[in-house]
């Protein structure tokens, strides 16, 4: 099983790319690594890039939503980027609730989204 998890740091933002056919234990390891990395780097934003996933079943969808929740608890904004069109159609039909997640078409638009979320946070403070 693939041990490496590509996490890229861009300024205050972490970009993690999920790729290939994930089995359950890989998914769990991603949760651990990413949350540790957010805490270590004090990232204020995290983008979870799922453009490399050709299939997202309800288990993996739930894990993605859970990772977003964990990252937010640490104080970092989080967004899911790059959901493939076929995956989006399938998830809606499957009935997996994903509407509460912040999403963007790609990493670039995700960066802009995070900037807006940070700004909204500052205003609220």
């Amino acid at each position: 099983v693939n041990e490496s998890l590509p996490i890229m740091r861009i300024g205050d933002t972490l970009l993690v790319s999920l790729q290939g056919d994930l089995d359950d234990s890989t998914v769990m390891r991603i949760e651990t690594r990413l949350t540790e990395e957010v805490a270590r780097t004090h990232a204020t934003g995290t983008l979870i890039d799922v453009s490399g996933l050709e299939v997202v079943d309800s288990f993996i969808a739930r894990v993605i939503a859970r990772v977003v929740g964990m990252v937010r608890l640490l104080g970092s904004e989080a967004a899911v980027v790059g959901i493939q069109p076929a995956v989006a159609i399938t998830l809606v039909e499957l009935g997996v609730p994903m509407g509460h997640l912040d999403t963007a078409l790609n990493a670039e638009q995700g960066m802009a989204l995070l900037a807006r979320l940070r700004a909204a946070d500052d205003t609220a403070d």
Partner: protein
Amino acid sequence: MTQLTEFTAKAAQPEEVVVSIATESDLIQVRQVLRAQADEAGLGLVDQTKLVTAGSELGRNILTHAKDSRGVMRVEQVRTQGRSGVRAEFTDEGPGIDDVDAALTDGYSTKGSLGLGLPGSKRLVDEFSIASAGGSPTTVVIIKWQR
């Protein structure tokens, strides 16, 4: 000549692919086999993704609910009225579903999951049938047709 022989053999004996499901890593095999079969049947990308996702849900159901967390998926190419499709059959050795109607309802779960496995996968395919009763094996058959 060789080609002709191969073709005849293939036509006379449709191939059935069998995947045994016992661990979570078998779900990767389930998805890969379904993807390959869907591609061979000429399904479009969205339909491929729906079939693979439905199979992944049903495979996970076996790991979560079946006796000894074991079961089998059998996949084959099917044809009707000039359309091709993929048929996948998921079977386990029990313990069976006490209330099939409830199990087909969104949000119904006996294991604290989202309860989308059966109703969700039913929505993703063109044909769905389930045979089960308390104490007996469960068989779920799904078919996805080419558009």
